[in-house]
């Protein structure tokens, strides 16, 4: 898989629903439609909240959170 796709939908979370995200709000949650046609839930990184649009082109980045856990996230594709 190429790891590239577009934003299918997104939200920006302002409410703290779990203490683990207390320092993260406001943060974006996105559903990315990958080039291959599959959709997946993730976060957007390296972007200001105001720049997020449905349809924007994104590419995957792998966030190595712990030695055991890596989460795929997405950033805007460089033009």
């Amino acid at each position, binding site marked *: 898989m190429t790891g590239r796709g577009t934003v*299918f*939908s997104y*939200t920006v979370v302002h409410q*703290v629903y*779990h203490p683990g995200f207390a320092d993260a709000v406001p943060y974006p949650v996105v559903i990315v439609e990958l080039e291959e046609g599959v959709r997946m839930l993730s976060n957007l990184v390296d972007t200001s909240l105001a720049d997020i649009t*449905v349809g924007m082109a994104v590419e995957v980045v792998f966030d190595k959170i712990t030695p055991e856990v890596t989460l795929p996230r997405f950033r805007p594709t460089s033009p």
Partner: protein
Amino acid sequence: MEFRKGATAIAGLGVTAQGKVYHARALGYAVEAIEAALADAGLNRSDVDGVLLNPGLSWRDGGMGSLHLQQAMGLTDLRLSATMNLGGATAIAMIQHAALAIAAGLCSTVACVFSDALLAPPRAPAARRNDGAGGSGARYAFASGLDAAYGHIGMNARYAMVARRHMHRYGTTNDHFGAVAVAQRQWANRNPAAQLHDTPLTLDDYHRSRWIIEPFHLFDCCLVSNGGVAVIVTSAERARALRRPPVYLWGTAQGHPGGDPLETLRTGAVLTRESAFRMAGLTTSDIDFCQLYDCYTLTVLMTLEDYGFCEAGGGGPFAASGATAPGGTLPTNTGGGQLSSFYMWGMTPVSEAIIQLRGDGGDRQLQKNEIGLVSGNGGLLSTHSTLILSRLAS
């Protein structure tokens, strides 16, 4: 007896105190609501031979709640009992189930009830108190697996994703969502029983209210309430012999579309608009008012579209035109709804329809009050039910 338009009726309505009430738990509010509904109808516990329960999230052993409810009320010799859960579509589904059972001769007098008690008093022990994290409905902030890892938590998050797609596909804006919130608050300001009766809301107030999960502001999201609501369903003939003017069932249907609501952007109303209206012998032009499930402002817009009151995607401009507000052509959620009155899942719109049809609306009473349309919605636009009620027998 045939299950047809006008064969059954709602003979009693019971609504407990709503909102930040703490004198009972969910079972207690259910008992209170049924007792109030029986008193309203002029009936006794011994008259009840059917109990249907839709348990809110706070019910212990909610899976068999109707058994506990029967025992709590000391009811004997029931012919019908069920604990049902389609989320917010259950209230109407219970009424439909009761009406079918009555028409089939299984039973004669069925209590249908919803109750919940998620809110804990401010000075409750920490274990019971729902603190700031999660807002007033911590039990709705469920999360698991990868969704939780990405901070995608609870129902607000899921509906917000659908809302963004609606905005993208149809050009719906926050002004449109705000129009729904403002219109319903206007209705609530005329309803002394509404939780937000004393608080007006302008479109500016709506926009300035804090973000919950964009595109939802605080006032895009429904209240959370402790309390209970019950109705008594009987045959039309029996209802006519009782204390209050009967509210007749003219049409009812369920519709659960499946698929991905992010793709389809539709509710089950597209499935029921033909069947429920056919049973009632009506079209949408015959509807005097709507009581539509309003867990979010978005849900109202989509439901209006899916019933055909406006074209697909046209819900926003329709609401912004003032059509649903006091003085509008299609009064909607005339008690304030779940957004501004109280949140008893599907019983909120059911109760307001009954109040309007009986002429009990006080300052918010509609002059045209012959036929009302009620919707229920559950999950993520997963389940849906429709009820068409009238104060006329046929």
